[in-house]
């Protein structure tokens, strides 16, 4: 896999980073019960890593025109969220979340990333009940949108579909 990344404009650090991300993707799929792969695990990890690198390359190419393209098909099995994760907009949301702090950061992670139910989140974070947790989630999202407003105003995050 390292050889593949190195052959395609990457470094050994890139290869290590991509491998770790592929393992995380595997973990996400297994955790959410969406992992369905008939081949060996290492084949899945390699295929995921390859596609992650291709998507990253495609993004880099947009930012740095002139990078060689290898005409490889980008992973079509990736969900729309998977495809968006590497986007600049997602990076800005990531940055905004860090600024948001706790408990919003953990609450949103538990809901959107770990896909826990509101009842589980209430227990985990010490809320009175699921409705209280849901209300808090709504407040956190509002706060996050407020942090992102400047990026929407300057067009770094598009607020309208094409």
């Amino acid at each position, binding site marked *: 896999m390292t050889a593949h990344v190195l052959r395609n404009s990457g470094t050994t650090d890139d290869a290590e980073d991509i491998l770790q991300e592929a393992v995380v993707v595997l973990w996400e799929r297994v955790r959410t019960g969406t992992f369905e792969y008939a081949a060996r695990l290492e084949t899945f990890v390699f295929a995921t890593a390859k596609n992650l690198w291709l998507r990253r390359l495609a993004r880099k190419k947009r930012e740095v025109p002139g990078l060689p393209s290898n005409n490889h098909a980008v992973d079509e099995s990736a969900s729309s969220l998977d495809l968006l994760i590497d986007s600049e*907009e997602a990076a*800005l949301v*990531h940055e905004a979340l860090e600024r948001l702090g706790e408990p919003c950061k953990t609450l949103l*992670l538990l809901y959107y*990333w770990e896909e826990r139910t509101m009842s589980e989140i209430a227990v985990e974070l010490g809320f009175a009940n699921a409705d209280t947790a849901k209300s808090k989630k709504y407040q956190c999202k509002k706060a996050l949108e407020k942090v992102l407003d400047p990026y929407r105003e300057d067009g770094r995050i598009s607020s*309208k579909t094409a």
Partner: protein
Amino acid sequence: MEESHQRPPDPDLLERYVLGRLGPDERTQVEELLQNSSAWRDALKREQILAAGIRRLGRATIKQRLSERLRTSVHYATPWPRIALAAAVMVVVVGVGFLNRWFVPSPTPDITSLEKLAETDDRARRHQPEDKLAEQELAMTEEVPAQEGRRASGYDRPEK
């Protein structure tokens, strides 16, 4: 249907749509709304970006933990030079030890014989006063030999 008459985007519905938590009927309903309403499409885009950003944070957190774990395991990976040094030290210590008979076991005392020894010793201590008494008696007989000797022989010789 004109967009102005359509229901406004429902954040909860869009959340669940993005997370794949809608049942088939609700999903069909949302997809129809998305098809017919730019407001719903814009709201979906915002929701998708939020979800992607949150997941990006989640992945980064796990990657960081993975990276730290890997760094720790590399730190504890087999340090061959150190093992070679430790092995060399062991060889020297064992060699010196054999030369100085550190590893020759001293004879282990037989517990049975120890017990017997203790018994004998104990008996010896218990008998000591009687022995001493016998010694004293012996000493007395030696001090007055003549008188004690006649008496001791039992003849009543007629006195001359």
